């Protein structure tokens, strides 16, 4: 007898989702047999809005793509613009930019650890990680002027320098975070109630992770050794020594371990950056407002994975096209697949294990070949024939 399954829709509005997205899970009893994903509920039109703004306005608009990785999006965008302008950035500017990158990674991973603990019902850990995240947020607020949208990047460098006092505070912070992270690593890998919920759940094999184009800590937890910081160094990463953390457990436990150990690496990098911090200017003094015509692609290892920005300029002070590929887009399909085989109660943690950010990812959805609405996809040849016929019938013009 064929196995009977039922489909349960989850979303677009659902308590486990922080942002709207629709899932359709096919279940047999308590076990998930299939998962489908449908996006497009959170389109904000930012890419189009960029075409109507100058490069500086776009910078602060794109910062607001994501509240957690705001620095990631500005850095990815600004690197593309700077390469179009052919700017050579002062070393100190690059180091400070990288410093904020790593502080952002620290707070993002602490946030994720808290969210993961919350999704499995371990709210004590959630409270402790978010309390410690506050330390990082306070430092970011002090050096940049805001907790969330740091706005520290500008075309040709950074906007603010750090003082000796702030430098000391950051060094003290890394010491505290190291201790805390060691403690969380102990809990994450030894606490039985936490382990029972994450070990062997949300399995994603190395082969499938590569086929599904997974990125970031999610892919590295499936033993895919990829990291833009090492493979294609940008900013000051070429001068730093760090390990790319991978795990071969291919489950949510692996994702916890990868993120926790990445925080240790981030602390090491922050210490190195402050030790080696060169003297000099923090930004290029005179930057032309008009950007020469051309196109550039920039890659950036955001806390959630590889972030790609494409900028095309036409010689004016406004970009002709800005395209953003947020890391969640790559990971979503893989996350939906990783749920298969788990139980219904594991859905929230399995989806949350990619650290999803739906509003960063959403773009317009165009339905093609929808006969009900009279929409269909046409080839160039069909379109041309249609045009010729339409003009002959309606305007009497013969081509």
């Amino acid at each position, binding site marked *: 007898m064929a196995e009977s399954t039922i489909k349960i829709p989850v979303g677009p509005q659902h308590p486990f989702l922080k942002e709207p997205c629709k899932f359709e899970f096919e279940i047999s009893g308590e076990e998930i047999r299939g998962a489908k994903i449908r996006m497009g509920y959170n389109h904000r039109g930012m890419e189009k809005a960029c075409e109507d*703004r*100058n490069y*500086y*306005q776009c910078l*602060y*608009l794109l*910062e*607001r793509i994501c509240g957690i990785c705001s620095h990631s999006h500005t850095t990815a965008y600004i690197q593309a613009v700077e390469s179009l302008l052919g700017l050579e950035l002062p070393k100190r500017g690059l180091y400070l930019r990288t410093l904020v990158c790593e502080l952002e990674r620290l707070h993002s991973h602490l946030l994720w650890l808290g969210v993961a603990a919350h999704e499995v019902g371990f709210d*004590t*850990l959630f409270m*402790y990680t978010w*309390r410690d995240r*506050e330390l990082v947020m*306070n430092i970011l*607020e*002090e050096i940049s*002027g*805001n907790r969330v*949208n740091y*706005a520290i990047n*500008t075309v040709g460098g950074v*906007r*603010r320098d750090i003082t000796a006092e702030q430098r000391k505070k950051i060094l003290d912070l890394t010491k505290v975070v190291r201790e805390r992270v060691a*403690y969380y690593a*102990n*809990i994450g890998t*030894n*606490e*039985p109630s936490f*382990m029972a919920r994450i070990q062997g759940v949300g399995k994603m094999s190395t082969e499938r992770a590569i086929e599904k184009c997974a990125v970031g800590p999610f892919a590295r937890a499936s033993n895919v050794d990829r990291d833009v910081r090492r493979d294609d160094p940008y900013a000051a990463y070429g001068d730093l020594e760090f390990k790319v953390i991978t795990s071969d457990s291919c489950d949510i436990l692996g994702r916890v371990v990868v993120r926790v150990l990445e925080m240790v690496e981030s602390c090491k990098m922050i210490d190195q950056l402050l030790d080696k911090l060169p003297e000099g200017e923090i930004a290029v003094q005179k930057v032309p407002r008009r950007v020469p015509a051309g196109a550039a692609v920039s890659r950036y290892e955001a806390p959630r994975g590889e972030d790609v920005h494409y900028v095309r300029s036409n010689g004016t002070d406004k970009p002709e096209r800005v395209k953003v590929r947020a890391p969640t887009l790559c990971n979503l399909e893989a996350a939906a697949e990783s749920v298969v085989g788990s139980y219904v109660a594991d859905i929230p943690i399995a989806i949350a294990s990619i650290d999803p950010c739906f509003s960063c990812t959403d773009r317009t959805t165009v339905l093609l070949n929808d006969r009900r609405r009279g929409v269909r996809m046409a080839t160039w040849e069909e379109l041309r024939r249609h045009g010729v016929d339409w003009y002959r019938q309606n305007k009497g013009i013969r081509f």
Partner: protein
Amino acid sequence: MKKVGLLLPEMMSHLAHKPVTRLYPFEKVTAPEGFRGTPRFKPNNCIGCKACVRDCTAEAIEIDVHKIDPPPGSPEGTKPTKKMVCTIYLDRCVHCARCVEVCPKDALYMDTEFEVANFTRDALKIVQESD
């Protein structure tokens, strides 16, 4: 290696601590120095170049330049004066401080005020005029 009660030492240590939650708004909280709070104008410094208007992401700044002719009876050749009417819409502002950075005459600055929420949008429209 599974161990029970790993969180206990941390939880016990908190018995002797005060809660970390701050009782805002009953307790006053101050933002650190350099915090990008509310943008403010110094209209007398403004020369009406509108560099801030051009670069404002949120289109939150308006500057009207009024020419005032010299009063009758003024000596010949007296130039008309300019009066700047600077408006900031705080409801639109995204607090990026680009306007402060781009102003050539330091006519804008950010203070650390962050409690600007209000019940009406009109209260968030700040109009300042030069002398």
